[in-house]
């Protein structure tokens, strides 16, 4: 048993490709657990960051600095009554959250956390992910229709129209990124791992290749992905001030938490596409420029150091906790949490673990950056009106993304063109 595990650890191919069913199941569970932890952390992270941006403290009561707040929320949602409106369409009402969650998590099959850390390496990875992410609209419209009341109906129609119109702009920018992969090897690849390796060979992240084009592609994609997941300036479907809670109005309890889970999973999925395509997935910064043995070891220490630093931060806050009897449990909780982080940090510094963990660390760091952007947008921007949203989707983002595709093509074949012109 241990042999097969060790033998597998040295294999350099993803479990799906290796066809080893046991490992695929393990990886699926790992990814599912990882994304759920990510959603839980994101719940706490969003409330805290938004609170600090709004000169308030955010959750402080449940656990030290609100650390147990997500667990408390999850527990509350599970316990709460999960009612279904009287003449709602029972089956469709029940199936809507299931469909939304399924599509949200389905996208993670192809997301590469590392050269071999992906459930499988489909050669049409990006296409598969875009296809699955556009299925989410189905669940939303089902939810809106099944709730049989005005607000959800309007919310779901708005969301359907919004997702469709931003889907095209997104896929155009993805086309431009895929075209960039064919620069070195002559033949592009749709497989997510292939794209990252192409960025490795071309010594540059696609965001910075062909200077203005890569960045505009990333910009357009990041705007379109915000609209795709109904967030921040484009959160019309669940615009509190107009449609109360849009398609979520009639949902409560566990079903509502499924939608909540799916929304965050969708956000993580779409940001992981952006990181893989433009910010060089799991590549550490400057893999070629600062190549060589000692640079590698230096960069591989970074994950361990960050966890130890977080542990130190927790202990620092532990000392600053008011020493009244009521806060003693919180203080001890914070100390324990700091301890756990410290242990993880030290384990990560071990040479064997270090090498494997750094890929996943860099990938999550970049996805974390996109998550921070989501929260930042949500605190700062007012909401677009529905017709303005459509105008931007069709009249602004779509032309720019088509322009990006044309520019990538032109720059890609510039030698042949010049040769043709001068001959």
């Amino acid at each position: 048993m241990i042999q097969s595990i060790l033998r597998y650890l040295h294999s350099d191919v993803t479990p799906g490709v290796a066809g080893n069913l046991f490992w695929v199941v393990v990886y699926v569970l790992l990814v599912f657990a990882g994304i759920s932890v990510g959603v839980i952390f994101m719940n706490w992270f969003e409330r805290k960051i938004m609170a600090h941006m709004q000169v308030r403290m955010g959750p402080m009561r449940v656990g030290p600095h609100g650390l147990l707040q997500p667990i408390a929320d999850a527990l509350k949602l599970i316990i709460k009554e999960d009612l279904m409106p009287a003449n709602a369409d029972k089956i469709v009402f029940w199936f809507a959250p299931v469909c939304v969650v399924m599509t949200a998590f389905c996208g993670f099959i192809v997301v590469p956390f590392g050269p071999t850390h992906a459930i499988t390496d489909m050669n049409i990875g990006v296409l598969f992910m875009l296809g699955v992410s556009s299925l989410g609209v189905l669940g939303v419209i089902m939810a809106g229709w099944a709730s049989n009341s005005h607000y959800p109906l309007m919310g779901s129609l708005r969301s359907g129209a919004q997702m469709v119109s931003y889907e095209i702009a997104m896929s155009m920018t993805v086309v431009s990124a895929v075209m960039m992969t064919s620069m070195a090897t002559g033949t592009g690849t749709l497989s997510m791992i292939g794209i990252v390796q192409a960025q490795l060979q071309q010594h540059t992240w696609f965001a910075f290749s062909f200077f203005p084009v890569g960045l505009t592609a990333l910009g357009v994609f990041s705007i379109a992905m915000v609209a795709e997941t109904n967030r921040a300036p484009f959160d019309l479907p669940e615009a509190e001030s107009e449609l109360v809670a849009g398609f979520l109005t009639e949902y409560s309890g566990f079903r509502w938490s499924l939608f909540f889970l799916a929304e965050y999973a969708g956000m993580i999925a779409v940001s992981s596409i952006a990181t893989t395509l433009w910010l060089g997935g799991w590549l550490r910064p400057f893999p070629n420029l600062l190549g060589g043995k000692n640079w590698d070891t230096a960069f591989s220490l970074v994950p361990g150091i960050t966890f130890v630093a977080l542990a130190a931060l927790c202990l620092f806050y532990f000392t600053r906790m008011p020493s009244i009897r009521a806060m003693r449990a919180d203080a001890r909780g914070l100390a324990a949490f700091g301890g756990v982080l410290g242990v993880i940090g030290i384990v990560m510094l071990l040479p064997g673990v270090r090498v494997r963990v750094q890929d996943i660390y860099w990938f999550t760091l970049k996805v974390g950056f996109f998550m921070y952007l989501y929260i930042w947008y949500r605190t700062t921007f007012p909401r677009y009106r529905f017709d303005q949203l459509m105008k931007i989707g069709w009249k602004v983002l779509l032309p720019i993304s088509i322009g990006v595709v044309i520019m990538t093509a032109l720059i890609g074949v510039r030698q042949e063109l010049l040769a043709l012109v001068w001959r």
Partner: protein
Amino acid sequence: MKIIEMVRRFLLIDLLEGMWVTFRHQNPSDLVTEQYPMNRPEISDRFRGQPRLVKDENGKLLCTACGACALACPEKLIKVGSLRDPETKKKVLTDFDFDLGRCMFCGLCEEACPSNALNLSSGYELALYTREGLELGKDQLENGIQGKVYDK
């Protein structure tokens, strides 16, 4: 001027300026939340909160049961009960009930009292579990409502 306008618009400068404002507010010194049971707000001395019957230095109530406060109250929620003391021919306060449930803390009773016997003190934790508890009797008005003190 038009070009700068165009460039600003194209590079989303106005959106970035907004984002810089929210980012700038993140430093911990800006936080204004007051965590209630631990750090309590400081109350001004003119605060109109819990009504109290004032005692002079040797513990005797200043109230002469004249009923001016009952007349002045817009909600007519004060009832002053008094007995005529045979020798001193002066009214003695027997009971004084004050229906806090309907009081709007306007302070008119405090103004009307000739002998400053009734005063809206700065107690603001008046929540109770029963509506009847809000009909304050004479003793409650003397030494205030003893609610449960929370610390966390």
